[in-house]
Structures are given as C-alpha cells and as structure tokens.
C-alpha cells in the first residue's frame, strides 16, 4: 500500500514530461526537498500532491496531451484542487485565453489570464532580467526564452511580479504561473514558494 498523502513527509510532485525542460524542474524541486515523478501517461498521475508543467513547445505538448490520453484526467485533477505550477509553455497550457496559438491548441483554462504566445518575440529578443517577487527578499533573476506575454488578468488573479509593467508571476487558487524559467537558475525560491502551497 502506498502511504496516503497526509502521512507522507515529503510531497510527491509530478513533472509533465511530454517535451521540454522537465529534468531541470526535477532538479529544482528535489533540491527543495520534494520527491518527483515524470508524467507521460495516465497512471503517472496516481498519488501526486502537485504537478509542474515545464517550459518547452506548447503546441507540441498540447498535441501530446491529447495522444497520451492525459488531457482529461489532468483537467479532472485540476478541478479536484491539484496544485499546478506552469512555467513559460506550462503557463500557456494553464491560461484561460491563448493568443497567437494554433487553432487546435488546447489549454486547461485553469487561471483567468490571457497570454500571447511568443509575445516577447523570437529568440533574438529572449532576455534575462532581475524582478522583484512579492513575499521574497531580494530580486529573482529571470530567464525569458521566447516567452509568452500576459496581456490581461481576471479579478481572481493575484500578480506576484511584474517586468516592465507586465505580469510575469501570478497565482489564482491552486494555480501558480511564471512566464520565465525559474528552473534554469540556481535560485529555487519560486519552487519553494509553490511547494508551500502544496
């Protein structure tokens, strides 16, 4: 028998491993004391305390969510209250409205934000910058790679950080999103912040 969630001392965090920077998230989460599991098929969702949707190519992940049969079970777990952290492409997958996506692109519409895919431009425009995050002391160094740009947030959304006046970290209920890649830098405070929610 697996121990139930309440009795386990460390949280078990799934990392969606269809495509993208899932390894880097596992390293970050494990350094914060979580156990991790790569999620590729439905059975990998069993017993998870939380889920991370990594950066990568959102259209690729959207397609693989359908072919792997993961889309509906993840949507169910989200509506049952699973905590999810989406970074870059992961934020696109959680967004309520995706602009400049493919017509067949699917998202979980789990947080009331509208995002524009590649909103900051192509790779020549990718950048790094320091940002201030609410409740964290000292700036977080953020790496933006062909990042999605938040174009609007609903009233249920709390913006935790902005860059140039644009929200780049936000939360709503059990959803936590960042348009950059906290998994690419050695500072894992955002992962810790997410794990506190779990």
């Amino acid at each position, binding site marked *: 028998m697996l121990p139930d969630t309440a009795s386990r001392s460390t949280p078990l965090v799934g990392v969606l*491993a*269809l*495509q*993208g*920077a*899932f*390894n*880097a998230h596992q390293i970050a989460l494990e350094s914060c004391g979580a156990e991790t599991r790569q999620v*590729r*098929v439905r059975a990998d969702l069993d017993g998870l305390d939380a889920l991370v949707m990594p*950066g*990568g*190519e959102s*259209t*690729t992940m959207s*397609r*693989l969510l359908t*072919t*792997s049969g993961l889309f509906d079970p993840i949507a169910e777990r989200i509506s049952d209250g699973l905590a999810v952290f989406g970074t*870059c*492409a992961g934020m696109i997958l959680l967004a309520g409205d995706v602009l*400049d*996506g*493919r017509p067949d692109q699917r998202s979980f519409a789990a947080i009331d934000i509208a995002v524009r*895919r*590649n909103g900051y431009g*192509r*790779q*020549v*425009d*990718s*950048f*790094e*910058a*320091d940002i201030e995050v609410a409740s964290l002391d000292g700036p977080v160094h953020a*790496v*933006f*790679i*062909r990042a999605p740009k938040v174009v609007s947030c609903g009233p249920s959304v709390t913006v935790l950080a902005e860059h*140039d006046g644009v929200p780049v970290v936000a939360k709503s209920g059990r959803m936590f999103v960042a348009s950059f*890649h906290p998994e*690419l*830098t050695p500072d894992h405070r955002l992962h810790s912040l997410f794990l506190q929610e779990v």
Partner: protein
Amino acid sequence: MSTVESSPERATGTYPVKRGLAEMMKGGVIMDVVNPEQAKIAEDAGACAVMALERVPADIRRDGGVARMSDPEMIDGIQAAVSIPVMAKVRIGHFVEAQILEALGVDFIDESEVLTPADEAHHIDKYQFTIPFVCGATNLGEALRRISEGACMIRSKGEAGTGNIVEAVRHLRSILGDIRKITQADSAELFEWAKRLQAPLSLVQEIAQTGALPVPLFCAGGIATPADAALAMQLGAEAVFVGSGIFKSDDPAPRAKAIVEATTHFRDAHILAKVSRGLGAPMTGIGMDDLTKFAERGW
C-alpha cells in the same frame, strides 16, 4: 555582427538565454523542411522546431556540388508559416552566412557538416552571436571543442541523408561512453583525457564532476523510424533531429506524428509498437560502403 546587449533591466544574447532555448527542445523532434507546406505538416505533427533548408540531406548527397545556406526568401516563407522555432544551417566556418541568418531572426543556427565546409581549419566563434548554435560531433573531443567555441547544443553527426542509424549510434556511444569513463578517472588522469581529446581541461574536469555534457546532447543523422528515435533516446540522447527520414518516406504526416510520440514515450515498448504500425515504407536508406562521409567534415 551581433553583440550581447546589456542594461540593468534586460540582457539579450547571454549564454544562459542561448543555452535555455536548447533546454526547451529536450524530449522533442526537430524536423528538416524545405518549404512552408512541409513546415506546417511538421508543426501539425508536434515538432518542437523545424530546420529550414533548400534540400534535405538525401538530395544534397544525390545532387553533389556545393551545398550552401538557404535563400533568405525561403527561410522567410517558413518563418511566416509556423509559430515554432525555426533553425537553419550554415557551412562550417562561414560566419557571414551566420550573420545573415541572425539578421533574419532565425532562432537557432546549425553549423553543419551536411553543407560544404567553407573553412578547413576553423569553426565559427559562436560567442559573437546573439542566437544559439548547434554543432555536430562524432566523439567527445569534437563535442568539447565545439562547446569551447560557444555551441549551446551538441548533436551526433550520424550520416545524414542515409536513413541508416548506425553512424549516429556509433557517435552517441563514443561520446557517452567516454563521459562514463571520465567520471571514473582520478584527477591526474583528467590531464591525459584532455590531451587525448584535444579539449579544454576545464571542460573535462566539469564532466568528471557532473557526468554529462554542459549542454544538451541530441541525436541526428539517419533516423527513419519511431524505433530509431527511441533507440537514440534510450542510448542517452535528449532529443532527435529527423532530416530526410520524414519527407523522403511514403507518407510523411503519420510518420512525423509517430516519431514525435516515440520520442516522448521512448521507454514504453507498448506505445512504440502502437505508433510503429501502418506507417508505409520508410525512406529506402543506403549502406555505409562507398559513401562520402559528411561526418568526416569538421575538425
């Protein structure tokens, strides 16, 4: 030539920003395409990026002559057709072709042995560019020399345009096998490894600590089936490039989708069996005898 632009608010073209895009392509399939229609098929199939070029390697091999960077108009057309990252190839050492691709806003440059080399001694100084580079390697020494020149991603060279995976397997086994040996070496032996590999000692010492290349290692050259892609991944590649293998097969779209699924589910033989069914004939492929080996280009 581009520069690393830096201000207190924002820095572009830095090494973490360039290497970051390589990290985002892990677990994915990068497909060679020669026109916007093929690029759309690749994106529909779930490619994480496309490589825009005028002829796939199988045709370059058949036609002979000098193979060069693609016409900017053709690259523009592919950039307009898809929203996923677009890569393009330059000749080894041809830094002006790279400057042109950067001006076009290409997302990643492949300094590729598939094109005819422009310089017999020097690869491009890749630190001079805002956009990241991938380079081929047949062994660990070559990989580390390319990384020391600023490459943000290494791929096996394999033997492009053959539909034959044997050379890519040789290159992956050579690179990863030597990494495994280096992790067992003592500190004195690392000097000998650096000398033998003709590679910077600092990179050899880093590998001894981490057990991995400092940049992502992808597989390229000869992938024609979903099983080939999964083989590369199980051997330790972190993503795959498919060149001629898709658009030289009988029915490209289903094969492209199957290779994407096989790359994600590379350890799941039941899924591999399912996606390998009914794909039609793969590209015919050719043996290694009497072949001009593209992999011998580059130094």
